[in-house]
């Protein structure tokens, strides 16, 4: 199983570790682990076409959380602007809609991970954990669905 799939499975395991009386430690680790599942999924997708497979892991080390967030926010904004007064374009451009979904899921998951790891001023709840895991799972399923769309998305995301 791919590393990001292992992480997602681990996040689900952590979320269900104490049913009925969830512990903050396991809920927070679940949120954080789900984010890293998405982080490594995106890196895996981005480096998959690199001609020399033995260098893909090294290439993956170049990816930076902050730069990925900035790129994602820019992409969401661009696509929203393009769709603003053109709902017909939105209806037919499934690639752009999907790309916006990926970028937004990444931004949201990253901020939730930051809360979970560092912010003790408020509790993390099971609903927040469920959403984090469901959001990453959805991205994972979509990435696995259509190789043709994936190729197109890679072109347009770059």
């Amino acid at each position, binding site marked *: 199983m791919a590393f990001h799939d292992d992480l997602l499975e681990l996040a689900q395991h952590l979320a269900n570790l104490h049913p009925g009386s969830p512990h903050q430690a396991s809920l927070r680790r679940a949120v954080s682990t789900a984010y890293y599942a998405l982080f490594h999924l995106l890196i895996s997708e981005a480096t998959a076409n690199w001609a020399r497979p033995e260098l893909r892991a090294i290439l993956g080390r170049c990816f930076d959380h*902050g730069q990925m*967030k*900035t790129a994602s*926010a820019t992409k*969401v*904004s661009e696509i*929203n*602007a393009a769709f*603003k007064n053109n709902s017909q374009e939105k209806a037919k451009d499934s690639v752009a809609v999907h790309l916006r979904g990926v970028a*937004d899921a990444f*931004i*949201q998951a*990253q*901020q*939730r991970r*930051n*809360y979970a790891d560092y912010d003790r001023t*408020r*509790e993390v*709840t*099971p*609903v*927040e954990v*469920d*959403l984090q895991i*469901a*959001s990453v799972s*959805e991205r994972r399923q979509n990435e696995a669905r259509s190789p043709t769309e994936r190729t197109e998305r890679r072109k347009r995301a770059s």
Partner: protein
Amino acid sequence: MFDDEEVLHPLEAARDNGVVQLPTAFVQQARFQTAVSRAAQRLAPHGVVQIIPTLGEDWSGEPAVFFMVILTDAASRRDRLLNISNEVSQTIYQQVQPLEKWGVLPYFNFRSQSEQAKLDQPAMV
């Protein structure tokens, strides 16, 4: 979109270190709250009880708005959660336009009504 939501220019104030720009959401907080409340009303039939916006900075220091969305317990079920969260975020993106119109990057968190009651957190706006 809404009559009272014309585009406003960010407040600019000259300081020792040059011109400082504040996002419109920080300067026009009451108007921003009104825009959010209108979106929340439209989402009520989907199970949205309340949307509480809190202005601040995200982990990287960018101006942000953190929406705490309170859902009915029925809407918070695992099989409905993803759909309702997508519906909420898309409605906020389209109707409020937090980044394009108000200069803040939107973040969404969701809780059920019973979770919120248990935590008994004061609403921070």
